[in-house]
């Protein structure tokens, strides 16, 4: 199966292991991702902070390009891009005059018929029903599923999961053999786009997230957003300084956790690209899972 795909800038740069794990996971489930032709940056936080029309026009051009390429549905793994695309589609639909103005700015037509999928929706819609056959070893760890802001808010527009206590990622973790922990910082903000301009504030907000995850007994934090990842991972020295202790809990993308469970190599999933080393104890290797043998049997049968 082929699926339209908007990687966005983070996945091409600082968060390339997210892209690598998304692509590898999809391949394992026989999905080929096809990039939106000649895509541009969504504008992220900077655009909506400085100019509203720009903040809608940049995502609108992406949606227009996707439509032109004939995609009915596109996967947008970056939570920030997903958020901007969803908000733009919503504003253009509910405010026709504004929508018209945006179409004039970009000089392209946008009908709004392209469906936008975040990475968890991709997993739920296309991967979970085939998961049992592909299981290689359970991801048998206590995991703090961290949703952050952009996947779940503004909830009236995104209409994805519960805004205060989301559970879709927790369900995925349970399906691959993990144990999601109950914790308080599931949807708190990591500091997002202030990583460079106010690292002190990012260290504080992300520090509270890390501290609570560790306190609740998590062995690993699971994310679905490149900004959350880089703040919790790359900014760990600043975080540890803020917390006045050395935390070494690794932060994995949901696609990396799932990739490990279905037997994709650590290298292919880009685990070596993290700043906080991923040292998960070996557990549950090919014990009670039907795994590849079952898949093999089914193919032959």
């Amino acid at each position, binding site marked *: 199966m082929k699926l339209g795909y908007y990687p966005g800038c983070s996945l091409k740069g600082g968060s390339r292991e997210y892209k690598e794990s998304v692509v590898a996971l999809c391949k394992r489930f026989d999905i080929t991702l096809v990039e939106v032709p000649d895509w541009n940056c969504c504008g992220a936080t*900077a655009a909506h902070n400085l100019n509203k029309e*720009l903040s809608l026009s940049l995502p609108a051009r992406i949606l227009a390009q996707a439509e032109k390429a004939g995609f009915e549905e596109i996967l947008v793994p970056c939570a920030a891009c997903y958020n901007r695309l969803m908000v733009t589609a919503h504003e253009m639909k509910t405010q026709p005059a504004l929508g018209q103005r945006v179409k004039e700015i970009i000089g392209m037509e946008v009908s709004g018929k392209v469906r936008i999928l975040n990475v968890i929706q991709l997993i739920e819609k296309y991967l979970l029903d085939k998961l049992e056959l592909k299981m290689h070893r359970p991801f048998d760890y206590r995991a703090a599923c961290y949703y952050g802001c952009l996947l779940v808010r503004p909830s009236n527009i995104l209409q994805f999961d519960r805004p205060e206590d989301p559970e879709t990622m927790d369900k995925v973790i349970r399906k691959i053999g993990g144990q999601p922990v109950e914790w308080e910082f599931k949807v708190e903000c990591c500091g997002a*786009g202030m990583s460079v301009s106010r690292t002190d504030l990012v260290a504080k907000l992300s520090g509270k997230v890390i501290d609570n995850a560790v306190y609740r007994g998590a062995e690993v934090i699971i994310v679905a957003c490149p900004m959350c990842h880089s703040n919790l991972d790359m900014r760990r020295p600043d975080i540890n300084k803020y917390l006045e202790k050395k935390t070494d809990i690794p932060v994995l993308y949901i696609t990396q956790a799932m990739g490990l469970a279905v037997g994709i190599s650590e290298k292919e999933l880009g685990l070596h690209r993290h700043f906080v080393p991923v040292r998960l104890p070996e557990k549950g290797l090919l014990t009670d899972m039907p795994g590849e043998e079952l898949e093999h049997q089914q193919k032959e049968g």
Partner: protein
Amino acid sequence: MSSAPHTIHKKGSLMEEIHDAREISVQKCYQCGKCSAGCPLAEDMDYPPSVIMRLLQTEDRQNEAIALRSETIWLCVTCETCATRCPMEIDIPGVMDFCRQRSLEKKMTHPKAKNIIAFHKAFLDSIDYTGRLYELGLIADYKARSFQLGQDVALAPGMIAKGKLSFLPELIRDRKGLAAIFRKTLHRKGGRS
């Protein structure tokens, strides 16, 4: 989210402008304080979000100026927690976006917001030139704008070793189209907020 028909704004007040431009009704705020209670950065702000709302509600020029000159509007990270919890469903981050843009236009930005604004501008420069974010270019541009020359230098070797930093930008084909979008929005004189 349209306002009640009996609502009369003071002509030319920011509250009226916000309503006209974004259909957000600041006057609906009844000061419950939920936005300030949930805001992850309230304690770092000079005025918590609910006070910004109150300042705007007074429709008083001096109070409006306090809001536009505040550090609050630049510290807001648009995490949307306030909007999710507001019992009146007021789009508070939308109010912050409006205030940021107006504060910038009127050159009323808080001195401590300098680096935050420098970063946003450097980010958009990068997209304007290449269509996609070029991280190395962004950092160079940010350093030039903010004079934070030494910051994060220690991170670079690690990022390069982990294959996270490209030396060359990715250019999109339709750069003319992208430049036109910037010309019609951000670079337009007298553009709306």
